[in-house]
Structure formats: structure tokens, C-alpha cells
């Protein structure tokens, strides 16, 4: 009798396990559609897609596929390619703009074929609404848009007494100043600040919103209110854009985002066929990189939408269907020292960092080759003093690479009074020891570890301080850090903004660890406001050596991007420098294998 009971129990348990175990789905079954499966590593997928206000995670990626900008920028040829805008021109060429006029006039023609996903055409009203909102702080309360547009145009009150009325890019008060002709029904005029680069964000970063939906935005109902109304939430959850893809709301959820191709998208390929060959895109969410790696090995996804850690490269290459593409990234990892500390974040250590001799010594202690070979397994390249990537035409080639010189570093520090006390391993001055925390996300742990080793040799102690996954939120803006490793990417399209954001010496904030230097500030301002393109590039090159000399953003390396992708389902992958294998070009080229 008792024996029976044991048997019964065992039977039940084994039945249970069998029942769950037998239900093994065949992986090939789950690939029933022709979509491209993209693995995305993030903490979770958002449920709403508000084009500008979502600056984190996958939101910008998805938003930029659903919505469109006016133009896109081609780095290689340095030109703007049509998207919603068909063509553009300066009303008056920059070099002929009168001195007393403080803005540039831009005329943009909208592609009359462009439509919203519900079939209605994109009109100038959409453009007006979008840019009005972008520049109207009282209706779209968001720091992100403001920052982006803040530098571009300031509008003062009529008597020019200096009172700021509004700021940012804005469209001309239509119908206002310009005479519109019948043919101009698809033309928009902009006024932008007299900065050459200012039109780049105007054209390429601001996603156009449909006027028919977003005309509800008012001062009472702000775009980014803390308690959105049902109506607004509906718009956020069911985005209607003019981009090449639409969001399949029903099939999207916390673990997956489904995008479907719009066959009525106005841009076509050279043969007049559909531009994007991929029928649809499925973003699959993975909480951890390792899960995504596992998924690509299993064949659950075709590509991972981010660089793969070096430790997995060998493991991935073992799989015959998985390829790893290595391309250089657009980011320069720079060791950023916090040298302009706001009062409330000031510490004795941070005060020490203001000493240029200390910064010089720190630079001399960095061995780029060693960092690349050890922490990156050789998957990276050296960077010059300026923070531009190698093959860029704005790079100042005359700048030397950083050379490690420990003897000189020690010499400098000894001379400047940073001495090693008896029984101590590290240097100190006036009782303040050279002990700095590097705030960084855990991904850079190994690099920091090697920096620790390097700095130890000149008597500087480095402590790792985890800053969480969200760098911008955790430390960039607060100024509450000693040092950080920061990815800096400068391309012409945003050099105006980034130069100011990173380097202009303003007194009010120390974000990004800026240094106070009036000469530098003057030069940056000149670079931004000059309407002479050649002079601009010349100044950029000069600025690079100036910044390199100040040594508060010390370039470490450019790491390579390793993109993992499967070759058994899709062919036609295109690798693009700086973005890896998952990019717009790939989407336009990929074809499904039969």
C-alpha cells in the first residue's frame, strides 16, 4: 500500500514535468512572418511613443521610423537628403546677409507626395505646428527640445530692449512677413540664428507631428504634462507619422514592438520600387545583453541593435550562421575631469583638478595602446588630442597622439608639491590626497580598472563609483562627479551645439566638466557664428588643439563596434561606420533568403 503511494507520487511529478517539457515549440514555427527580428537590450519597452519627448531607450529609434524629419544628413558627402522636405535654400546666401540682420532665412519645399499613415498629405500646417510647438516652452514643457533648439534663434521684443520673448527655431509668423504665391502652397520659411550649423537640427532632428492630431496642444494641455488626458495618451499610444513604418499597436507590448512597412511611403528606390525591402521589423526586448546573445545564437533574432561586448565575440563566431561585423564607432571615449564645479558639489579633490599641472600629469599617465589592447582586446583605435574621429575632414591631423610618459608625470607632480607621505602609497597635497572617484556605468568597469593601474604608477588613487545605467540622469547634469568616462561624438552636423554644450566656458553650470577659459569661449563663439564655411573649419581645427592643451577631456580611445547578425534568414547587410550593422541602409537592402 505504501509502495503504491510512492509510485503514485513519482508518477504525478514526472507527468507534470513531462507535460511542461514536451511542449517544446519548434523555433522555426515562430518565424511565421517576413519581419526582421531585432534584439534590443534595455530595461523594458515603453508603451507610448511621443516623438520628441522620449529620449531614452528604444523610443528614439522607433519614433524616427514612424515619424520623419524634413531632411536627413549624409555625412560622407556633407549634404542634406530629402525626406519630407523636397528641397531647401537660403533666401539670402549667408555671406550676403546684412550685418544688422541677426538671422538667416531658409526656404523649404515640402514633398507633395508625402502622406501621413492615414493617407492624408503632409502640409505646411504640420510643419508650422511642429516648429511652433518646439519653440514654445509654454506648450511643450521639455528640457530636451529646449536644449536642442535653444541655441538657434532668440526672439526679442519689438523695441529690441533686450527682453527675451521666445527662443529656439521658429517658423515665420505665417502668413505674416512673406508673400505666398499659389505655387508656394508647399513652402515653409524659417528664421534661424546666424549660425551655419543651426539648420542641421532644424532639418534632421525635429520629427514632424501631424497637425490634425496635435492641434489640441495648448497652454492648458501641454505636450509633456505630468498627467496626460485620455486624448493625449491615445495619441502617444497610437502614433500616426509620415515615416516609412507604422506601429502595429495590437501586436506590440512590453516584450515586443512591431513595425509594419508603409507601402504608400513617398520615397522610392532608384527603380521606383519600394524603398525599404524589409516588410516589417520586430524589436524584441531583452533585459540583459547575455539574453540577447543567447537569442541570436538560438535564431530568435536576426540582429542585435547595439554593440556586442568583446567577451562574446569569439563565442558568437563559433556559430556558422552568426557573423560579427567590426566597424569603428563614432564615439571617442574621453576621460572627463570635473573642473568647473558648482558650489554645492565642490570637494577638496575637485578643487585640485583645477590645477593644469595635475591634469597634464594625468594625461601623461594614460597609455592608449595599453588600454586598447588590454581592456578592449585590441578592438579599438587610438585617438588624437582632438575629440574627432580619425577619417573626418575636420580633424586636426597635426595634433599628436597621447604618449605615455610616467617619469615626466611623476616629475611634474613632485615639482608641483604633490608628494607621497611616509607610509602612504598615494600622493597628497596640503592634506588632500589624490583620490578620485570615476563615476561610470558598469559597462566600462574594465577600462576603469586599467586606468586604476596606470594612475597608481603616478601615485593617484582611482575608485570606481557606479553611476547606474542612465548616465545623463545619474551624473552628467548634476556635476556631482570627480571624473567620468564620457562618449563624445563630434560631427559637423552638430558641431555647433556640441561645441557649446561641451566646451563653452560659461559660469553657470559645470555640466560635462567644462573649464572656464575666456579665450576658448571667444573662439567657440566665433566658430559658431561665422558665416564663412572655410573659416569655420579652420577654427574647428584650432579649437581641437586648444582643447587638447587644457587636458580636462583626455581622449582614451575609440572602441570598435561589434555587431552580431545572422546570415541565414536575411542577406544584404550593410555595415555603416559609427552605427554598426543595424542601420537605415541595411533596412533598404535586406532581402529574405528563400
Amino acid at each position, binding site marked *: 500500500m505504501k509502495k503504491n503511494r510512492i509510485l503514485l507520487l513519482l508518477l504525478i511529478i514526472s507527468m507534470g514535468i513531462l507535460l511542461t517539457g514536451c511542449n517544446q515549440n519548434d523555433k522555426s514555427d515562430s518565424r511565421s512572418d517576413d519581419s526582421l527580428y531585432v534584439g534590443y537590450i534595455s530595461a523594458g519597452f515603453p508603451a507610448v511613443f511621443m516623438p520628441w519627448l522620449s529620449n531614452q531607450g528604444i523610443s528614439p529609434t522607433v519614433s524616427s521610423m514612424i515619424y520623419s524629419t524634413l531632411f536627413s544628413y549624409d555625412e560622407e558627402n556633407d549634404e542634406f537628403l530629402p525626406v519630407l522636405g523636397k528641397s531647401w535654400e537660403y533666401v539670402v546666401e549667408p555671406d550676403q546677409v546684412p550685418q544688422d540682420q541677426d538671422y538667416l532665412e531658409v526656404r523649404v519645399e515640402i514633398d507633395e507626395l508625402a502622406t501621413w499613415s492615414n493617407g492624408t498629405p503632409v502640409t505646411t500646417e504640420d510643419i508650422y505646428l511642429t516648429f511652433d510647438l518646439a519653440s514654445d516652452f509654454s506648450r511643450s514643457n521639455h528640457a530636451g527640445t529646449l536644449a536642442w533648439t535653444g541655441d538657434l534663434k532668440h526672439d526679442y521684443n519689438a523695441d529690441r530692449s533686450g527682453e527675451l520673448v521666445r527662443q529656439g527655431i521658429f517658423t515665420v509668423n505665417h502668413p505674416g512677413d512673406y508673400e505666398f504665391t499659389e505655387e508656394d502652397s508647399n513652402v515653409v520659411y524659417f528664421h534661424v540664428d546666424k549660425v551655419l550649423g543651426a539648420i542641421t537640427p532644424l532639418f534632421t532632428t525635429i520629427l514632424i507631428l501631424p497637425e490634425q492630431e496635435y492641434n489640441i496642444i495648448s497652454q492648458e494641455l501641454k505636450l509633456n504634462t505630468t498627467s496626460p488626458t485620455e486624448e493625449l495618451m491615445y495619441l502617444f499610444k497610437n502614433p500616426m507619422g509620415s515615416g516609412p513604418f507604422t506601429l502595429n499597436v495590437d501586436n506590440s507590448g512590453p516584450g515586443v514592438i512591431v513595425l509594419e512597412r508603409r507601402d504608400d511611403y513617398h520615397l522610392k528606390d532608384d527603380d521606383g520600387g519600394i524603398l525599404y525591402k524589409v516588410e516589417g521589423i520586430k524589436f524584441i526586448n531583452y533585459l540583459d545583453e547575455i539574453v540577447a546573445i543567447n537569442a541570436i545564437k538560438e535564431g530568435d533574432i536576426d540582429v542585435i541593435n547595439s554593440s556586442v561586448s568583446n567577451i562574446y565575440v569569439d563565442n558568437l563566431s563559433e556559430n556558422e550562421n552568426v557573423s560579427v561585423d567590426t566597424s569603428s564607432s563614432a564615439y571617442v571615449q574621453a576621460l572627463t575631469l570635473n573642473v568647473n564645479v558648482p558650489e554645492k558639489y565642490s570637494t577638496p579633490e575637485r578643487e585640485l583638478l583645477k590645477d593644469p599641472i595635475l591634469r597634464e600629469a594625468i594625461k601623461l599617465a594614460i597609455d592608449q595602446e595599453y588600454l586598447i589592447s588590454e581592456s578592449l582586446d585590441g578592438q579599438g583605435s587610438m585617438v588624437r588630442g582632438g575629440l574627432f574621429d580619425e577619417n573626418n575632414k575636420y580633424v586636426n591631423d597635426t595634433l599628436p597622439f597621447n604618449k605615455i610618459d610616467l617619469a615626466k608625470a611623476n616629475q611634474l607632480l613632485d615639482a608641483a608639491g604633490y608628494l607621497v607621505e611616509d607610509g602612504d602609497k598615494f600622493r597628497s597635497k596640503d592634506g588632500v590626497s589624490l583620490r578620485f572617484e570615476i563615476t561610470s556605468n558598469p559597462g566600462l568597469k*574594465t577600462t576603469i580598472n586599467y586606468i586604476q593601474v596606470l594612475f597608481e604608477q603616478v601615485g593617484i588613487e582611482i575608485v*570606481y563609483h*557606479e553611476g547606474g545605467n542612465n548616465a545623463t540622469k545619474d551624473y552628467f547634469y548634476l556635476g556631482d562627479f570627480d571624473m567620468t568616462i564620457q562618449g563624445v561624438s563630434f560631427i559637423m552636423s552638430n558641431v555647433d551645439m556640441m561645441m557649446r554644450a561641451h566646451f563653452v566656458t560659461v559660469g553657470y553650470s559645470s555640466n560635462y566638466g567644462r573649464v572656464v577659459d575666456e579665450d576658448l569661449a571667444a573662439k567657440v563663439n566665433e566658430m559658431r557664428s561665422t558665416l564663412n564655411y572655410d573659416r569655420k573649419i579652420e577654427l574647428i581645427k584650432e579649437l581641437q588643439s586648444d582643447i587638447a592643451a587644457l587636458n580636462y577631456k583626455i581622449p582614451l580611445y575609440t572602441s570598435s563596434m561589434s555587431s552580431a547578425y545572422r546570415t541565414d534568414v536575411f542577406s544584404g547587410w550593410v555595415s555603416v561606420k559609427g552605427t554598426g550593422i543595424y542601420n537605415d541602409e541595411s533596412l533598404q537592402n535586406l532581402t529574405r533568403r528563400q
Partner: protein
Amino acid sequence: MKYKNNIIFAIAKSLLNTLITLGQMIIKIWNHKKGRIGLILVVMISLIAIFAPFLAPYDPYDVLQRGARGVGPSTEYFLGTTSYGQDIFSMLIYGARVSMSICIITAILISFTGAIIGIAAGYLGKLPDAIIMRVVDVMLVIPTLPITIVLTNLFGKSYAMLIFIFTLFGWAGLSRVVRSQVLTIKNTNYVKSAELFGGGKWYVMTKHILPGVSNQLIMNTAMTAAGVMIAEAGLSFLGLGNTEFISWGKMLAEAQSSGAFLLGYWWWIIAPGIGIFASVSAFMLIGFSLEEIFNPRMKSSNSQYKVLKTLSGTYIKELFEQMEAADNVGGIENE
């Protein structure tokens, strides 16, 4: 004799007494088979933690020049290395420092606070009791792991803060158990007798009630230590523990997020797992032996079961206690 009224003397004496009791307790545990294993393990792990710098063959924070990454157990690297080239054996030894010290300190703090609050509630009764028990109710309802995460987010995850938070949310359960014991002791005739002789509240609390609940407290310290070890490991595993030091939970977290499985680095998971398992079971073995020491008549397996049941079903026990307490409402004499 004047010196007898001296408070310092009294404290010193009670400290000495506590030490003697503890010493006796340790001897008792040592004489017990299971207890001895647990004791040896705890002492051994503690010693390893204390002398970590002398025992560890490599610097555990060192991902340096060696370039040996993901090496399996070998003569050079006793327990292999991580994907970053850290020596796991050294990490294990250093990890004992954080894991052991946090759980021992927290366990002692929890027992201390739990005892004081439980005794205060049980012995003082009336308003203090009502207030304390309502606070305990609230504490027990709030989910511990999430609130710990929220608080570390707000106040940082320094070593001291972790201990503080664990203590903050650990005392409630214990004080409820202590309180019910105090209620029992408070109504015994020997306490009444002491009161008849003019023994004040302080006298009764220190001479009768505290020693009366001390068995429970000592056992609870052991079991709390086990619980905190698990909690700390879980927190670190979620990446929410102290970031400066290596702990076993953090090792597991790194192993998991760095794909130890995928790369086949099983040693990276097994080593800290064994560390946690060994220390938790060491504390549990001590708990078992204490239960058997305190209830010598109970069969060994039964007492072990009893401890396990306390660990897994605290609330139910409390519910019964509440009902028992409700039975004795009103102070009707029971002749």
C-alpha cells in the same frame, strides 16, 4: 555598598553575564554534533574573511595584466577566473568579508532592537504596546525587498546603509515573537513574586524577562544571520548591493550578466553559490542545535522540523498566537 548603585558597574556586570552566557552557549553548541559543524563553518568563514588579504593568492579586484580570462579551475587558478580575468578563489575569500560581516552585524542588531522593542511592548503593555504593535503591523505588511530597494535608491547603498535598512525592516517580526513570550513570562508567578518583593520594572525586565527570552534571541540571531545572508545575496544579485566591495551575491550577478552559462564558465556560478550555501547552512545548523539544546526532550528530527517551520511559516505561527492572546482577554482568573 555604594558601588552597586553604579550604573556602569551594572552594565559591565550584565555584559559580563551576557558574555558568560554566550560562552556557555558556545560550549553547548560545540558539544552538539550538528552545532559543531555549524560552529566550525562559521568560525572558519569568519577567519577567512578576517585574514582575507593573507589568504587570497591574487588581488580580487585585479583584472590586470595576467590576461587569463575565463580559465577553468587549474593549479594556477584554484577556482578559475572570470570573463574579466579576476581570480574567483580570491574573490570568494574577499566576498566572505562583506557577506559575513553584514549578516552577523545585522543579525545582532536585529536581535538587539527586536528584543528591546518586543520586551518594551510586552512588559509595558497598554499604550506603548498598542503603538508598537501597530507599527509592527505596518512593517510586516510592507514588502521587504522592494522597500529595501527604494531606500537604497534614496539613501545610497553604502555598507552602513545596507545594515541600517536590513535592521529597520527586520526587527518587526522578531519583536512580535518576543512580545508574545514576554506576555507569557510576565504572567508567571515568579515574576509576580518578584514584584511582591518590591522588584521594579527594570529589575523584572533585566532579571526575569530578558533571560527568559534570551534562548529565543540567541536562536533568532542565528536564523536571522541566515536570512540576512540570503537577503544580501539577493540584493547584490539584483545589482543593488554595495558596489564598492565584492560580495558573493555580486559575484553571482556578474556571472549571470556576463554570460557565465553561455560561455560555459560554470565555476563562476558554483563558487559563490557554495559560499552562500555553506554559510547559510552553518547558521541553520547552529539554529538546529540550539533548538535541541533548549528543548532537550524533543526528538532531534522534530526540533529540526520545528526550526524549518519557523523559517517558512512565521506568519501562521503569529496568527495562532494572536488567537491565543484573544483567548486570554480580560484577565479572568484561571484557577
